[in-house]
């Protein structure tokens, strides 16, 4: 089937708690950047770097 297992080369970065705090603990709630922007920062912490094979 198409769902066969292959080698799993995925590594999720290990994110220290401090990194997460740095996104949010930058000022009072009413002075924070838009939530969408902060979401991209959070997702960025936990996403692997893009595949770069196309730039060979």
């Amino acid at each position, binding site marked *: 089937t*198409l*769902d066969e297992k*292959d080698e799993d*080369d*995925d590594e*999720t970065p290990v*994110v220290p*708690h401090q990194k*997460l*705090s740095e*996104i*949010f*603990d930058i000022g*009072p*709630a*009413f002075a*924070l950047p*838009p*939530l*969408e922007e*902060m*979401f*991209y920062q*959070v*997702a*960025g912490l*936990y*996403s*692997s*770097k*893009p*595949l770069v*094979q*196309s*730039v*060979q």
Partner: protein
Amino acid sequence: TNSLNLKAQKAAHSKSLIFEPRVAASQSFDTIYILCHEGFQELCLLDGRFLEFQRDIFGEQSQTEDRVQMTAAENSELNKRLEAFLGLVGGRLRLTPAIKAVEWLLRRFRVHEYNTSFLLTTFLPYHTLPLFTTLLSILPNKLPQEYEFLNPYVRSLMPPPRRTIVQTATNSNSFASALNTYVLRICKSRQHYPALLAFWAGIMTEAMGGMLDKSRSGRKGVQEQKEHDVILRLLPTLNEGLAMKSVPDLRIGCYMLLSVMASKGGLDDKVLTAMMEAVVLGWTTETIIPGLVCLSVLAQHRGAKQMTKRLTKELLKVENLPSLLLQLSNQRRLDKLANGLCLSLVDRLRNHGDLRGLPIVEKMIENGILSDQQSSVIVKSLLLVAHQVDESSDQINLRQHLASSLVTLTQLPGHGGDVVRGTLKDTEIDMDELEMKLHTTIRPAILPAP
């Protein structure tokens, strides 16, 4: 005892957000009403939704309303109105008119005593401001359980730092659940404002990270159980949040929680799949892009490769899906999401002759969004579908499109094309036969015959 009673009454009457206790103690209700009503009227000019309170809690008659004289039913009805007002005024607490209006709720209806938890949660996003410390100074001695962590700050009259709030949300279920419930309730009544959602999402995301880290201690079986408990506690909030389509920031906050949850390894495939479906089912133009980012994080942690039919169906509705994915792939890896989609699209092609997926598959391979191995598997499965096409008239269309797609893929420049050509070279499918069947030449001239 009468004089004691009087003293207690006077002390209670001296609790104010605006006035020194001694001044407050001497004020009559009509003096306070005039001042507070002014604030209320200004609020009404800012936001017409405040007008609904002008006949009850801000009406003339409110000056003589005393909750001690009211029945339990009347009190509970009053609580609803007071909390409805507090919810609405939450977004304006940095404005003087708002403080004046809240002062009325405090002085006349003693919200700080009767609605302590709701009032505190309403003020919590402003915990760094002197306003919050003033509120701390007039609270009753015994705080509700979820707010007991404020006791040291009540004693020192210092603002609680954000760190303390995160720690409390991490370690106290009653506080975390009070915060979640409050936010959902405010969103349901359309009283949300950006700072509240940013505050909630930030605190809960960090707290959830902390809860999952904490659950990592102890024996493996115990760990799993603890992790499971953390997730079970939060899933209802996520489900409810994702179901509320019209509050984009609430959805994005849920995406945030989900992404961290999945990344910390807390979700099994079944939950991941359900959550991925919940992400796409209620998204709107405002939440599609962050939704795709969330999907990409969730997909990276899912064991199963192929995407569910439901998920694929919703993704196909997204305008410009390939270019959106392309754009997002510049910042992060989303090969598993793209691969799951491509596998499912090939499946639709094979089972239903659905051609809509072909251009998407081409784009994913062309732009190196898939890994080489993933690309190769997709190309192989396309070849297999082509191989199975028969001469019947209802497959003519499918045959033509597949042929043209395979030609396009083979002629791709760069690395993507190399992977496709390499796959063709390796395939066990009889290419001469396939080319005849498709009435086309797939293998380019540059490719030497094997």
